[in-house]
């Protein structure tokens, strides 16, 4: 584990803005700029052999003026039982966007769609960026802090599949 830890720090030293170790969840937390995410994901997959992307999720720091949204990626190395959390801080508060890593990790496809669904973060070059859980008439992104709690949406019509 120490070996991969050193390897991780060495390989990513150019793009990581801040690194820390979260003892509670036993994983490395690395903060990067959003434009580096595809490069980082490729390095993790190809060079460091992190074989699983567990989840992609966003956080809405509503009161932070400069970086309201951050996108988190949880990577897992099954052979070493080792985890890394990549945090990308997104500068654009009005139209948050980040590159998709669905071509590197297949599981990012749906995870990024859910993230787009709930937070409205656009993933550039995503193969199929549409809502995953909510229905297509839904307006807005409900997990954003400025989504009104009482706001109701039109009742969806039945899909053709039924």
């Amino acid at each position: 584990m120490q070996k991969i830890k050193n390897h991780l720090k060495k390989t990513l030293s150019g793009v990581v803005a801040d690194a820390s170790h979260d003892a509670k969840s036993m994983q490395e937390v690395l903060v990067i700029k959003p434009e580096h995410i595809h490069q980082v994901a490729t390095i993790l997959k190809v060079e460091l052999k992190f074989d699983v992307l567990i989840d992609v999720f966003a956080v809405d720091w509503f009161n932070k003026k400069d970086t309201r949204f951050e996108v988190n990626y949880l990577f897992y190395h099954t052979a070493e039982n080792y985890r890394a959390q990549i945090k990308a801080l997104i500068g654009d508060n009005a139209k948050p966007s980040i590159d998709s890593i669905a071509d590197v990790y297949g599981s990012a496809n749906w995870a990024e769609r859910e993230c787009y669904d709930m937070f409205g973060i656009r993933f550039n070059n995503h193969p199929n960026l549409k809502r995953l859980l909510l229905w297509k008439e839904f307006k807005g992104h409900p997990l954003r802090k400025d989504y009104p709690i009482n706001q109701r949406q039109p009742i969806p019509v039945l899909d053709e599949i039924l």
Partner: protein
Amino acid sequence: MSKQEIVTPSFGDTVVTTRIKSVLNWARKYSLWPMPFGTACCAIEFMGAVSSAFDLSRFGAEVVRFSPRQSDLLMVMGTINYKQAPILKKIYEQMCEPKWVVAVGACASSGGFYNNYSVLQGIDEVIPVDIYVPGCPPRPEQILDALVKLQKKIDPTAFVDGLNNTYQYDLK
């Protein structure tokens, strides 16, 4: 000459005269076929209500069917979210007339404590409801009570327990 005077000499007291409507309603209210639409913990309470400790069959609603086409009482038990609402409506439309709906529990009646973007605020937004059962989840006795109230709603001018006083049931 009244009906009584015609019928009684021929048949004695072996004949009861009534109306077709009353007989039909009497048959309907004591042979309700419930269809459980269970999506949450209220459905577990329904299992308690149909099994031996409480026994829904004592009130005639014994045959629980899992097809809307074979049932006339839709029991909606649990949280219904917006994506499920059209499915519930479709199930309701597939049931044959006459049909009744019981909303069991706080979620089916009003959305319960789920005041958010995804949960329907009561199933009466999509289908008509006859009886609302409060509780989170309600006790099986409340489900039995809902059934008895529904029976009274189906046949409001029924005889009570063999007594000859007809009454109008107050649904309040």
